């Protein structure tokens, strides 16, 4: 846990920086193109990607899980390639993620799943974590913190719980893989309000969706809009 002190953000460093990052296709499955992206504190990138499997691999590359053949991927100024296992994990603790597969461990209740990353990476007392989780859950339309296993929740409630888990703590970077799939207008508004709050506090956001409807009316609030194709990351016309 001491490692967390070593990865405290420097306000001048980009929250996420991909510099000619070229993943190794053999080991990752991500197309071996050169990816470039720079996100500073409070910025938001909306990325359209028809193949969400590819988007998940791109998010994996952003958190240093994919080996690079060339280039650099940096998070908060730290190059993943220079960090050992412990420091990499500590840095990943500063990133909130909503993953397409859910990433739920059904051995525990949903509340434990939500609190798990914070329980692992921090020493914040559990009652404080619980009250923060309850606050976020209520804002996203849940009656409280769900305690039943994730596989017994409805798909929409699981999505709400995934957003709560990603926003717990003070994430420096949010990686969202189509978090609002099939969401109602009410849920979308609550979610956008929370994302805006986090951005105001310096969190950078990467929001991926298969088409523009994935982020509703938020397109105008984004810093940059991109498309993820088989041959790399491209700016969208007019962004």
């Amino acid at each position, binding site marked *: 846990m001491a*490692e967390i002190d070593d990865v405290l953000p420097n306000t001048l460093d980009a929250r996420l920086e991909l510099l000619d990052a070229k993943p190794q296709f053999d080991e990752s499955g991500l197309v071996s193109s050169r990816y470039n992206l720079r996100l500073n504190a409070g910025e938001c990138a909306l990325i359209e990607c028809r193949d969400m499997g590819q988007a998940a691999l791109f998010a994996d590359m952003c958190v240093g899980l994919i080996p690079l053949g060339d280039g650099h991927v940096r998070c908060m100024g730290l190059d993943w390639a220079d960090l050992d296992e*412990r420091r990499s994990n500590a840095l990943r603790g500063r990133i909130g993620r909503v993953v397409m597969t859910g990433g739920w461990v059904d051995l525990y209740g949903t509340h434990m799943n939500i609190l798990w990353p914070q329980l*692992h990476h921090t020493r914040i007392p559990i009652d404080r974590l619980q009250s923060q989780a309850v606050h976020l859950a209520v804002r996203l339309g849940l009656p409280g913190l769900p305690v039943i296993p994730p596989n017994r929740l409805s798909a929409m409630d699981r999505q709400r719980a995934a957003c709560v888990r990603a926003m717990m703590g003070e994430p420096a970077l949010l990686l969202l893989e189509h978090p609002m799939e099939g969401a109602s207008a009410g849920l979308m508004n609550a979610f956008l309000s929370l994302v805006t709050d986090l951005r105001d506090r310096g969190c950078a956001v990467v929001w991926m969706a298969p088409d523009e409807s994935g982020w509703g009316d938020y397109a105008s609030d984004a810093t940059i809009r991109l498309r993820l194709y088989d041959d790399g990351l491209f700016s969208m016309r007019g962004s």
Partner: protein
Amino acid sequence: MKGLRNLDRITMVRSMLVHLGYFSRTQMRFTLMMIGAGWGIMREATRLTTWRRTVRIEFWASLHQAVGGGILSTLVTAALTGFGIVAQTVYWLGFAGMAQMTGSILSTVLVREIAPVLVGVILLGRSGMLMLTELGTLTTGGQMRAMTGMGVDPFISFLLPRSLAMTISGFTLGIIFSMTALLVGYAVCRVEDAITMPIWAFLDQVVSSVKPIDYFVIPAKFIFSGYAVGVCSCLSGMDVTTEDDLSSMLPRGFARGMLSIMVINVVFSVCFDG
């Protein structure tokens, strides 16, 4: 014509060597993984920062499951073993006029040789297979990768606490097994009048026949059997691919677990043969 026949032979030998090499490499791969993981767990367990809240939660849950879940099976198996082995040993040694050998034979055969194997098998069947299934499902479902993406290392969060919980369970269940088997055996013999000495004299006979080296070997067998079952089951669960399912995971994990129990027991018996 002769040249072609020689070429066929060379191709056949090469094919055999390829299969032999593939078999040896795949077998050795898991053994080396087990040795590496075993050493890694011991090294990580000594670091204070490893024992985070999530690791402690997982450790206590696994310990509760392994000891609490396995105690009934251990008691029943121990009672049956006591009924079978202790009673028969006492009866036949008495019949042969060698009753003074009772303690020595029981401590050697039952406590030193049979108990660690049976406790290992109980642990493997009752908890090891459960761990394998749980971790295998999480791996194939992509949850392990998602957890890694959140900075939660599955090695620290699952493999380490579960293996250490199995180690403690191995020792605990082993001692319970040995005591239960001896007591049930004594009770059966007493009921059948095959033995007339009081329980304290019987236990004293068993204890005094235990050699000094056995005070190390017996607990070591329990501890290392539990550790091997834990590491083997967790590693088998985390080593699955998307092509694996329960029908391929479970038999493979069971075979590996049984083999590791046997190897631990044979190595200790051979190296520390008093």
